């Protein structure tokens, strides 16, 4: 409704078109479009700076570099939707990876069991954090800040005197070094596209049968074509290098699971409700403390999953695993891609898109051999840009009310 009103207010001409574009971008409804434009701009820029940037080998590496951050970011999105923050996800990922590596190398545990132990460690930490937040009403900012130190200390302790545990070639390292054959890649892509179109068609058919408006067909068709084209392009590029990486399939699969949980289940609806208005959620009979605890458990388990993938890629766990800028990248990504820091607004997809934005910038600057100082400043600048856009969206929403 308000969209139409605003469109009529905007005058014609070039200025009007620009202003309308600005509106669309700051309204937050075209959230993912803005991020995709951002990624395109970043890729074009780095391709101009370094001709290797868009090569199949580098793009495949770019994806593999980002699977860990993207996995952690999925958990961060869940936390942000609640209106909470988790500053300990980085060190949780490091600690859980250390637990896994030590179990495998020093205790001869099977890789599968060790990975499960790492995930369980993460879940236990999340349970602790969630318990402290709900039982003692400690702000999540404070308790996870303490956790950041606590878990990192525990990680150093677990790793022992040498401080580094190298992983032998096993199931864990295979996670990020397995690639599908070109044919298998195509089959996966075609199946994904067929499922996507089928679901969209079924959804429209169900709404029509129920006598409800199905929404603009053209917009949905355009979206399907764009996503399908992106998938085909990705397979072409992956197949020119080593093939579709297993790790990418794992991360996209995780994202799909949590998109379903947040958007189609009661639990997901309750996460949004708690993030939007916790008091209203409580009065509606939602057990908000239980929702909070489960979300912290899921987020910490996902952080552990990210830690496993990072260890798999590094072929080792050391004292800096889960440290340095991992935490900031994992939180900045979703925020750049449109998930609100104030709760109740956002999407699990922003975890993947955000990781792609930040990862592309990091990868491009590595290719240009820029120093860490420049990299930090640029990433910080992009984050400021993103939160400013989000703040503008929020202000507009408030004035609309």
């Amino acid at each position, binding site marked *: 409704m308000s969209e139409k009103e605003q469109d009529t207010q905007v005058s014609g001409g070039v200025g009007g078109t620009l202003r309308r574009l600005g509106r669309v971008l700051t309204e937050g409804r075209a959230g993912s479009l803005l991020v995709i434009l951002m990624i395109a701009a970043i890729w074009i820029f780095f391709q101009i700076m370094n001709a290797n940037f868009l090569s199949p080998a580098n793009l495949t590496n770019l994806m593999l570099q980002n699977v860990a951050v993207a996995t952690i970011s999925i958990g961060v999105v869940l936390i942000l939707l609640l209106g909470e923050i988790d500053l300990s996800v980085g060190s949780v990922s490091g600690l859980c990876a250390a637990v896994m590596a030590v179990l495998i190398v020093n205790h001869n545990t099977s890789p599968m069991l060790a990975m499960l132990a790492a995930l369980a460690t993460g879940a236990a930490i999340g349970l602790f954090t969630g318990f402290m937040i709900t039982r003692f009403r400690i702000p999540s900012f404070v308790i996870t800040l303490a956790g950041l130190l606590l878990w990192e200390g525990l990680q150093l302790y677990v790793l022992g005197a040498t401080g580094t545990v190298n992983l032998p070639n096993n199931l864990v390292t295979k996670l990020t070094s397995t690639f599908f054959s070109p044919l298998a890649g195509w089959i996966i892509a075609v199946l994904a596209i067929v499922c996507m179109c089928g679901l969209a068609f079924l959804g429209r058919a169900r709404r029509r049968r129920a006598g409800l408006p199905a929404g603009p067909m053209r917009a949905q068709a355009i979206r399907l074509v764009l996503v399908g084209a992106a998938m085909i392009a990705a397979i072409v590029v992956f197949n020119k290098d080593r093939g579709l990486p297993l790790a990418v399939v794992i991360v996209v699969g995780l994202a799909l699971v949590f998109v379903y949980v947040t958007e189609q289940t009661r639990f997901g609806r309750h996460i949004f409700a708690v993030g939007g208005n916790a008091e209203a959620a409580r009065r509606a*009979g939602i057990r908000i403390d239980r929702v909070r605890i489960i979300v912290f458990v899921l987020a910490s388990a996902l952080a552990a999953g990210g830690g496993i993938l990072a260890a798999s890629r590094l072929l080792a766990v050391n004292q800096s695993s889960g440290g340095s800028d991992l935490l900031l990248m994992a939180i900045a990504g979703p925020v750049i891609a449109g998930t609100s820091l104030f709760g109740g607004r956002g999407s699990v997809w922003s975890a993947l898109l955000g990781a792609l934005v930040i990862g592309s910038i990091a990868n491009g600057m590595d290719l240009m051999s820029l120093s860490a100082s420049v990299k930090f400043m640029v990433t910080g600048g992009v984050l400021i840009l993103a939160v400013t856009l989000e703040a503008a969206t929020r202000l507009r929403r408030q004035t609309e009310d």
Partner: protein
Amino acid sequence: MGDEPVPAVTATTAASPLLALKGVSKRFGPLEALTGVDFEVDAGEVVALVGDNGAGKSTLIKAIAGVQLCDEGTFFMRGTEVTISSPKDADALGITTVYQDLALCDNLDIFANLYLGHERFVKNATRFTGYLDEIEMEKSSLKLLESLAVTTIKDVRAHVASLSGGQRQAVAITRSLLGEPSVVLLDEPTAALGVVQTKQVLNLIRTLRERGLGVVVISHNLADVFEVADRIIVLRLGGRVATFDVKGVSHEDVVAAITGAEFGAAPDEVEEPT
């Protein structure tokens, strides 16, 4: 206002009103917020509860809603004695409350707000992995709004953040009706609304009355009270000082009862906090 005949939800005899309270008292330390107050509302009746700040309106409403227990007093539903010791009790008895802050989630759709905490699932889905039946919720939301003659809301997929104050009030009232209650308590439903929106909300209140609900409205706005209420109950300093049939009473009489001028007490008597 909908003009199709709506069957009364409940039938009560004249002798036993839908909801009745007898001798309700509440003390906060040395302060008596309510002293031996009787209260009653009948099916198909709108009762306005008026009084100055600190008169005990909120305390009384909270006692009925089960949010804050009173020290003394007996409750009757259709003549049968009942106890209300928690919001759940009130809910089970068919008493629902719409608070002034409405308790809506701005970031959710209208139908998501209506069904918040009572989501419906696709057949055969379990409560945890459950696939929400959005189509069913959307359809019945539209039907419900239509049955209440709420014509200002067309798209139940709109976010509540984009609604006007009157539309929000309509959503909150509609939600309170999902559990098919028999008594609805409305806390300042027209506060901070414009003229047109106030009219819409008052129409909605009339629709509730036509459906045979007992409606209790707390309001500071006497103009709205006179427009929609059947009876006016005046509280002052924790006691029930007057009851008026809205026909045959003037604004001045009600104001006099609220301020206590008619009863010989100074209007600026010590205020009692709630």
